[in-house]
């Protein structure tokens, strides 16, 4: 049963326009990487690789890909009304949630991790940045899971999920988390970077400002768990119009 939900979701997620948009987005760091490979300035490779990936992937590609796919997973069906066909079936709501998440999360992870890996290796692979790149790939993969779960839940909670998600990423993670120390513990971006830093000790990401990796992992797990619970809870109480 879960499999059918997952398969159906995969089919609906990969609408042509969306796919093109996401591939272009994920390709941007790769293209920059290739540009760097071709015409790169000499200089400290590891540091620059880390900065490039942080700026391009962690701040932009990762949350955007998670946002577009996550909010679409259930949100798109709610918006166009086709969710009714899924809701009026004797399938436990948690199974629906699992199927949806199972279909949505891997593409996000693959796109983002692939982008990180290829771009990172292109920029700094032969400048000793391999460990950093791998660490970032791991961190970004976990971050992708967390973002996906969060945005799928948002998609079930509100029809303005995309704006809400953007507000979270731009305003909360972007502006405010930089200002208030405490809010850093509630930022998926920070969790991602903390995990990467922990896997690459002494590397350019391992700054004093980084979160403790334990806190980061707990944070990631909490986001995943709470988002899943919220998704199941809300799916069970979704109210739909039967007619117009």
């Amino acid at each position, binding site marked *: 049963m879960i499999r059918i939900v997952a398969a159906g979701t995969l089919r609906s997620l990969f609408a042509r326009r969306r796919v093109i948009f996401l591939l272009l987005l994920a390709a941007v760091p790769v293209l920059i990487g290739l540009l760097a490979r071709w015409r790169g300035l000499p200089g400290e490779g590891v540091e620059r690789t880390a900065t490039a990936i942080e700026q391009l992937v962690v701040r932009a590609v990762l949350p955007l890909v998670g946002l577009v796919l996550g909010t679409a997973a259930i949100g798109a069906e709610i918006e166009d*009304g086709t969710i*009714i*066909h899924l809701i009026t079936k004797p399938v436990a709501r948690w199974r629906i949630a699992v199927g949806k998440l199972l279909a949505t999360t891997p593409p996000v992870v693959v796109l983002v991790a692939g982008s990180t890996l290829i771009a990172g290796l292109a920029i700094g692979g032969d400048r000793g940045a391999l460990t950093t790149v791998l660490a970032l790939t791991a961190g970004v993969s976990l971050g992708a899971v967390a973002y996906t779960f969060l945005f799928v839940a948002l998609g079930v909670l509100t029809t303005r999920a995309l704006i809400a998600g953007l507000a979270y990423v731009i305003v909360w993670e972007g502006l405010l988390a930089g200002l208030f120390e405490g809010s850093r513990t509630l930022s998926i971006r920070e969790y991602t970077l903390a995990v990467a830093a922990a896997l690459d000790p002494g590397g350019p990401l391992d700054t004093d400002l980084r979160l403790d990796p334990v806190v980061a992992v707990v944070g990631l797990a909490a986001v995943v768990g709470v988002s899943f619970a919220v998704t199941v809870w809300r799916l069970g109480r979704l109210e739909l119009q039967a007619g117009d």
Partner: protein
Amino acid sequence: MSGPRGPVEGWVDPGGVIAPAPPILSSPQSAVLEVPPDAPIRVEHASRWYGNVVAVNDVSFGIGAGITGLLGPNGAGKSTLLGMLAGLLRPSAGSVTVLGRPTWRDPGVYRQLGLVPEREAVPAYLSGRRFVRDAAALQGLPDPGAAADRALGIVDLLDPADRTLGTYSKGMRQRAKLAAALVHDPAVLLLDEPFNGMDPRQRLHMMDLLRQMAAEGRTILFSSHILEEVERLAQQVLVLYAGRLAASGDFREIRRLMTDRPHEFTIRSSDDRRLAAALVAEPSVFAAELRDGWLIVRTADFPAFTRRLPVLARDGSVTLHEVRPTDESLESVFAYLVRR
């Protein structure tokens, strides 16, 4: 009468009224209602409001096997009521149960329940076959492909089954939704304005289909604001107006209950004028009119009139060629109900 899961009996009133709806003259809210406990669909004092707006107002009824029409103008609350029956909306008050289970927050109820929603929303990129097959699989059927093909056959959609739903006409999409709702052989079927956008041939076909399913013992409830459809198809009606249940049962019976409204008959006889003269003398008749070759009689006392008419005709040596009640259409019933 027997349904797919054994005999269904004991609660159909031989007089034609299903639910123990009170006589038309008392308001449903004030009467003490007893909805029969084993009716497949039971609604007890169900209400639904959105802030200040009450969409469904203290509605109670029971529905059994056969076809019941939910009739009402747009905005009367039909879709809201169907939404509650289908488990898509939470009743703000009261209870809504299908086959003994409350419909809200109970996915299991969908094993026995099929819904054909009004909205166009179907995934355009799926083929018809795929759509119905997925429905079958999600219902947990052991052989979804076969079940899907059977359902598609019933709705006559086998030929275009492999084309995507986006290429279907509106009527075809409607049939696809019906196939998906039937694929698991549900005991209860809910249809929201199912004939919207159908051409006459498709409509007749679907009506035949529904009649056949009702004969198998299924409980079918469909909503409509087109009186002719309901009149032709439904064995019983529920009339909803401004969120309230205005009447329920067989519409001819309802008509008979509207005693404060005169009945009208159209008569063609061998000597209309003579018959008219005799009728006008009757206390049960309060108007007789000769118009365009017909005799139109209005009476306030239906039983007395029906007894006296043949007697008067015989006594006056008038042959009755045709006697027709003119205002027992559902339309006149409906107009009366919503005017009260």
